[in-house]
């Protein structure tokens, strides 16, 4: 099972599911990380965390531990 935080920089993936129903997972879904959407990992901060993503035409940054909730397929 591949999670978003394991996707290499520059690569794209499609979201399969977002685990959890706490406010953090809810926020990820509201921001557009819904099952079926295409996400591209643009880069990371100098220390490797957080990640910069591109989806639905805009840029989003999330921490690795938040990205680990997002299951993806490539």
């Amino acid at each position, binding site marked *: 099972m591949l999670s978003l935080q394991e996707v290499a920089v520059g690569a794209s993936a499609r979201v399969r*599911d977002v685990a959890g129903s706490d*406010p953090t997972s809810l926020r990820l*879904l509201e921001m557009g990380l819904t099952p079926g959407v295409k996400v591209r990992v643009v*880069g990371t901060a100098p220390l490797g965390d*957080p990640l910069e993503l591109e989806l639905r035409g805009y840029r*989003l940054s999330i*921490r690795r531990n938040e990205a680990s909730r997002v299951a993806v397929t490539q």
Partner: protein
Amino acid sequence: MNTHSADGTLSPRDPLIVALLGNPNTGKSTLFSALAGIATRVGNYPGVTVEEKIGQFTHHNQVIKLIDLPGTYSLFPKSPDETVAVNVLRGQMPGVPLPDCVIVVADATNLERNLYLASQVLEIGLPTVIALTLCDLADEKGIVIDTALLAQRLGCPVVRVIAPTHEGIAALCDNVIAAPATLHPSPITLDRDFAAANTGHSLPAREAMARYAWIERQLSGVITKTPPASRSFDERIDAVLTHRGWGTLIFIATMLLVFTSIFWLATPLMDLISSGMDGLATGVESLLPPGAIRSLIVNGVLAGIGGVVVFLPQIAMLFFFVAILEGCGYLSRAAFLMDRLLYGVGLSGKSFIPLLSSFACAIPGIMAARTIENRRDRLLTILVAPLMSCSARLPVYLLLCGAFVPNVAVGVPWLRLPALVLAAMYAVGVVVAALVALVLTQTVFRGPPQPFVMELPGWRWPRASVVWERVREASWSFLQNAGTLIVAVSIVVWALASYPYSQQLIEAEVDADRQKLVWRLSQYPPTDPDRVEIVDQLASLETADGLEAARRGAAQRQSFLGRAGRFIEPVVKPLGWDWRIGCAAIASFPAREVVLGTLGVIYNLGEIDPGEEDGSTALVRRLRAATWDGTNRKVYTLPVALSIMIFFALCAQCASTLVVIAQETNSWVWPVVAFTYMTLLAWLGAFATYQIGSAFDL
């Protein structure tokens, strides 16, 4: 809710209640300013720390009350901001009538995600108008939106707006006024999608999927985007700015620019204000006869006002930079770069700029914490900001390091111990702040991890009107709220330092001091170098100035302040301090800089300004020669100097900061908490420093 007359129209006399909401970074504040100018009522909603912002304007004889709701990505009540928005839209917020109309601000460059909130608002069923902002940016990016088609699909008007140039504002207002009477938005149908999306996902996931599926359906054919020939401007800039190497370098350079500007550029302005106030004080002094009234006005009121106004350049400058960085989109990149470091201590990337500015002065730093939407992070940042050694502590460090730290080289000849100790004082503040944040996150602020899901907005030119508004609002609110209280505190301290006042007792004390000096002189062998200082002091008592200074010192010692110093002597003795230092510490409550001046007065140097060359060397000489009452034992040893510095590094001796904390958190609990924990830490730190230092016989 306004009552409609029989034919369904609104009486133009009743104000129309309009709610304004939208995602952050959509130019909502610019739109608010374009519609209603400056907010007429700014405070907090009852019971929560969510700012209530209401403006008023008139369009075609109709008075409109505009409620600016906090920027949110969704109405699902996960946070106070969202809860307030939902309550207002449902008419369940005490003191706020049910809105007649809702304006949803949608970013034209980001329509897909922006419609998420719009879909929730449309479900509520209030008359809605969608204001499409940042259209100029969308045009630049080659994004074309068929607003007519979109309006038809959504069932509500969609108006193109370019707020800074007021393009579309009139049309927006027309639609808003017409909305309650003419439009009945069709309820959006999510049910079909719900069932279709029932493929084993959780309920929140299914709802989000359903909404985005609905959005995709509404938007099909609405947006035509000309694909960029090469990488877009945004991408190219981001590639550099969030790059591991270049991004970090540019970031450090930017932060240095901001920080040094606040430090160095503001200083000439602050000096200007200072000398202006001094000139005013001298003028008043020459006009009024000496006495209590004159002293109250000059040393109480004017000193207090001067103490407030002197912060204005720093506040204005910081907010200027923050507004520009936020407006262009760089602030979120900065938070992105710093997040990992700050997350390690329980904060987040957004705390970086407030904390950095606090090295110049905690007041603008704490106010800058407004950029942190997350309530817990914001409060935590505000509570640890005063630990960043501000510029007011620097004179204390410089004087004590210079006078009592041996000027030896450490390792290399150009690296001197006093400089290292100075750097160590700054480091102490940072380390303690990190520890405090960690402890607070594990205890008082324990809770589920706060998400750092943060949008990186597209690059845009910051709007001059928005920048100006930020600077103006911050400066004015500081002057108004903090100013009155700080002046009041200064007057109280003046009173405590000036009374009780008895000419007789003062003369008696000056005489007693003279006797003590003569006695001490007899204790020193004729060749002891410290004799020189005592001879000097005796000699100065024969001069008019010296006598005046001695009288002033005696007056202060006999005042409530002086007595308080003596009273707390048992508490400060374990720190190696005598009552004079305790007295100076208490006197420095309004502002730390005062401590050196107070020491000057207590040691009979009169009203010297320790910044002056003569002043500091005279003070240093007196400190070096100072002994415990009735003995020859020196008060100021290295451990004592270090303990004083550590105390000032960690203490909250700044009434202005505490007042601003109250203002920003809308409660007096937090300044009390800050003062208590910092004073405790300061005492413990000074205690440990002195005891350990003495044990090692430094």
